[in-house]
């Protein structure tokens, strides 16, 4: 056999120069004209302004790179799509086709998951608000019920007797992982022994199967270290459970929380430079899973409920400039047709916004406002932005997560949402609202009718 060369992992470094250009501003904002080779102008012409655009290609690629990051490092990995992050049926079905289970937090989301063809035993049912009816259905469907509090636990104990079924449950555990704020309002606390009490309560009934341990330590967790701490604590509980009850925990569900590449307001560096990659998270999490000794040396399945990091990049919001103004202090302001009604996320992210067509080199500090008659409707504060005119179009990047579920209907209709498939065909996946949508919901008492 021939002698092989010493291997060194591939690296790529950017050479940074720091030569400001002669126009003063650091760089010219390049326009974004196309999403997956579909022209943004053609989308607005056909579907109106504003319009949300989702890229199926990006969703699948992002999912696959996340799955690969974990599955190449750990033998049993299962993602469960976090419905609340984006529960458009078309989006959920893409994740399900890729192999994701469903993670739901309400009866509404649970029904959506069933309608999307997911079988009950692949639905993880989280959250503090599960009605008795929800629980009965989940028990009968063998869903994975993640218990949030003792009142829910007692309801499940009662139901297991009433229905003569054996519910499959996990408990949600909150803990100190160094992340602030600590999400201690969900689940049972680890440090004060509450989680251990819940385990005891469940297993002493003999009627409920405890198959998993769950935590969700927060969202936009930009340090993968926190997950290592969480895994250490969950492993300790799994071992204690085995010693006392000879019950092996089948899965560890580490929740969601990976940061996306949207930059948080006030951050010193752009998130594209600072956000850990899937590989970074996977490295930390799987190393911790492998380092811990679980009962009988059997590695539990690792479940991930990743939300924002899987969908943010796939979503775009294209719209139109409504007006330019000078504020009283002389600063430039631009009013656009997408506000915080569609981008709740503008409260904490510095969303990236781009012109759709080439602009001149000139730019000016500009505050970008949405169209709502509310002072809080600010999309970006004083950013260097080219001088767009009324009627010019723009596109906002990375708006796939939480926008299309947390949006609010305030003074206007919610817009069309289209999906560009992998063959670059465009599909309408949610119709814009019109007055009939709202008329259907409202009832007018007789004495207020004009005959």
């Amino acid at each position, binding site marked *: 056999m021939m002698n*092989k*060369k*010493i*291997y*060194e*992992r*591939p*690296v*790529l*470094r*950017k*050479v940074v120069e720091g030569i400001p250009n002669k126009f003063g501003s650091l760089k010219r904002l390049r326009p974004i004209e196309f999403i997956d080779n579909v022209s943004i102008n053609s989308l607005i012409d056909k579907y109106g302004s504003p319009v949300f655009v989702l890229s199926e290609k990006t969703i699948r690629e992002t999912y696959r*790179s996340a799955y*690969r*990051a974990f599955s*190449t*490092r750990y033998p049993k990995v299962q993602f469960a799509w976090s419905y609340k992050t984006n529960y458009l049926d078309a989006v959920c079905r893409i994740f399900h086709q890729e192999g994701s289970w469903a993670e739901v937090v309400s009866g509404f989301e649970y029904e959506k998951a069933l309608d999307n063809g997911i079988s009950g035993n692949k639905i993880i049912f989280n959250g503090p608000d599960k009605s008795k009816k929800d629980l009965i259905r989940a028990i009968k469907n063998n869903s994975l019920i993640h218990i949030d509090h003792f009142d829910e636990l007692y309801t499940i104990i009662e139901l297991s007797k009433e229905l003569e079924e054996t519910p499959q449950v996990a408990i949600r555990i909150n803990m100190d992982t160094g992340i602030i704020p600590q999400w201690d309002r969900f689940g049972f606390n680890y440090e004060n022994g509450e989680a251990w009490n819940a385990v005891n309560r469940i297993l002493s009934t003999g009627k409920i199967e405890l198959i998993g341990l769950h935590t969700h330590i927060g969202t936009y967790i930009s340090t993968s270290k926190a997950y290592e701490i969480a895994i250490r604590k969950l492993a300790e509980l799994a071992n204690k459970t085995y010693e006392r009850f000879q019950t092996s925990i089948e899965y560890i569900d580490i929740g969601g929380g990976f940061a996306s590449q949207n930059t948080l307001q006030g951050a010193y560096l752009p998130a*594209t430079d600072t956000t850990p*990659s899937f*590989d970074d998270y996977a490295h930390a999490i799987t190393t911790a899973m492998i380092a811990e000794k679980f009962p009988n040396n059997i590695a539990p399945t690792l479940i991930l409920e990743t939300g924002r990091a899987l969908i943010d990049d796939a979503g775009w919001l294209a719209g139109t400039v409504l007006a330019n103004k000078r504020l009283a202090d002389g600063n430039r302001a631009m009013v656009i047709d997408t506000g915080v009604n569609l981008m709740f996320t503008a409260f904490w992210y510095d969303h990236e916004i781009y012109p759709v067509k080439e602009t001149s080199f000139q730019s000016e500090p500009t505050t970008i406002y949405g169209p709502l008659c509310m002072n809080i409707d600010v999309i970006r504060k004083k950013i260097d932005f080219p001088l767009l005119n009324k009627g010019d179009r723009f596109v906002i990047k990375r708006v796939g997560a939480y926008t299309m579920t947390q949006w609010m209907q305030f003074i206007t209709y919610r817009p069309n949402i289209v999906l560009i498939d992998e063959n670059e065909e465009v599909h309408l996946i949610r119709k814009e609202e019109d007055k009939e949508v709202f008329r259907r919901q409202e009832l007018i008492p007789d004495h207020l009718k004009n005959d």
Partner: protein
Amino acid sequence: MSKLNSIAISDNGFLFKPSTGESFTTNEIGLIILNLLKEGKTHEEIINSIMEEFDVDEINAGRDLYEFLDFLKKENLID
């Protein structure tokens, strides 16, 4: 791999992207990967040729390759 073809790659691992004026440096393995990508090789083929030449197993070569590809993507050097 049309994007890579528009990038000047020197033998000593210096990359220049004319469309933006950005430049990058890479090491020996990085250079090999870039050249194989330019030739249109699949990821499996790249992993295999790295394993043939270097003392590395498939898992590690694969993991590093995908990390490297992610980085290239982030820098808009490949699609």
